[in-house]
């Protein structure tokens, strides 16, 4: 889902960069003064951890392998959508400049798709479903799934606006594919959350009145 350079015209890419920068600035503000505690080092180190997490091969039922995005997981555990934004921004910078995965001019769009959507959909999806049904693992599953699916839909829309991929086919292929892959992202988000809760229950920001 990493859009490469050239698939979004320069003026549009600039618009996405401006939007992304606003979110990055907000994420930085969050990291520097949330709950009276400075979290910049913590989140920077965690970004490297998410990079390692993304390196793990995950089997996809029909044969190939995929990998996690992890923005929703970071946002859920750290209790803020901005955790997802911060972590994915760092990850995408490294992927873009070192690995060539995802373009430079379009990095704003990629940060919006994976970081902002992953963080916000992941976090608020988790909060909402948790309150609704009171089970944090189901909530994490739904949030993980939705974060990936909505990212893919947004990606398709951006490419359609750019005129480099038709909307209907984009929604069909990218939306459809990620609706299925999202099940794995959601599943792993829930399982990982279970492990994190058993190992370090204290680090998890739990929504009120929610039990495991």
């Amino acid at each position, binding site marked *: 889902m990493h859009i490469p350079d050239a698939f979004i015209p320069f003026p549009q890419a600039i618009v996405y960069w401006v939007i992304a920068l606003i979110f990055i600035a907000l994420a930085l503000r969050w990291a520097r003064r949330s709950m009276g505690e400075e979290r910049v080092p913590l989140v920077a180190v965690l970004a490297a951890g998410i990079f390692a997490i993304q390196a793990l091969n995950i089997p996809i039922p029909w044969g190939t392998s995929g990998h996690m995005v992890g923005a929703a997981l970071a946002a859920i555990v750290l209790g803020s959508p901005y955790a997802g934004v911060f972590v994915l921004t760092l990850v995408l910078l490294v992927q873009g400049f070192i690995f060539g995965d995802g373009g430079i001019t379009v990095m704003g769009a990629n940060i919006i798709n994976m970081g902002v959507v992953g963080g916000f959909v992941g976090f608020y999806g988790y909060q909402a479903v948790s309150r609704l049904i009171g089970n944090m693992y189901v909530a994490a599953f739904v949030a993980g799934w939705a974060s990936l699916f909505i990212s893919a839909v947004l990606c398709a829309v951006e490419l359609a606006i750019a005129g480099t991929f038709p909307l209907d086919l984009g929604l069909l292929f990218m939306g459809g594919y990620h609706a299925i892959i999202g099940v794995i992202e959601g599943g792993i988000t829930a399982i990982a959350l*279970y*492990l994190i809760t*058993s*190992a*370090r229950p204290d680090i998890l920001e739990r929504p009120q009145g929610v039990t495991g």
Partner: protein
Amino acid sequence: MHLIETRNLSYVYRGSVAALSNVNFIAERASRIAVIGANGAGKSTLFKHFNGILKPTSGEVLIRGEAVTRENIREIRKSVGLVFQNPDDQIFSPTVEQDIAFGPMNLGLDEETVAHRVDAALSLLGIEHLRERVPHHLSGGEKKRVAIAGVLAMEPQVLVLDEPTAGLDPQGVASLVEFVNTLPQKYGMTVIFSTHHVELVPEIADSVYVMDQGEIVAQGSVAEIFVKDDLLARTRLDVPVIPKLLRSLRDDGVDVEMAYTFGDARRALTDAYERRR
């Protein structure tokens, strides 16, 4: 046919760094082997060849006379169990029990056998009380035992331990040494371990390999290796205090027999003084 044999094993790391060169290593059944060497001497790299985690750049690795292939790799990993230096690299499950079951489950054993293996491993290590615990909350010594139990549950013939005493306090070391020593005696298992904690070697090994910069620079019994002060110094290792002290005394003209363990040294020195009466 040897249990483990490497023939002129060489390994080049990331395409450029020579990590092992011309290593000839042999392990027999029910033996206790120490591989000593400074950090970066190639001990861990050698160990990862014993169960096919790494593949030789040149030379051969034979396990019970067979080279490691795609077909027998599961069988080999089952019979050569590798315990990592840092238990955190090895323990991922939410409970101790699940972690120990991980290996047997991957072997495709049925549920009953898995449960039996887990019970046996827990009791062998004396950690039945940790069964339901979250591994993350255990002490370093407890985690080490869980890691070993997780490997023993696969019922290997060889237990390979990478720096087993790293990070343990003296009591932790002592009880680990005691446990490891039971394996060859009671179960005929071969134990291979690496350490730069040379003091331990006489207590826990019959034969010793000394590694330096990817090569085996010496091999022999504990007594044979620990007289070679210059070799140990050259490979940036200490001579254990006891033999070092006795040798200095002999150099000073004290007529005392050589000894390697604490008990032997005490006896040798008392005898020497008695003889002077």
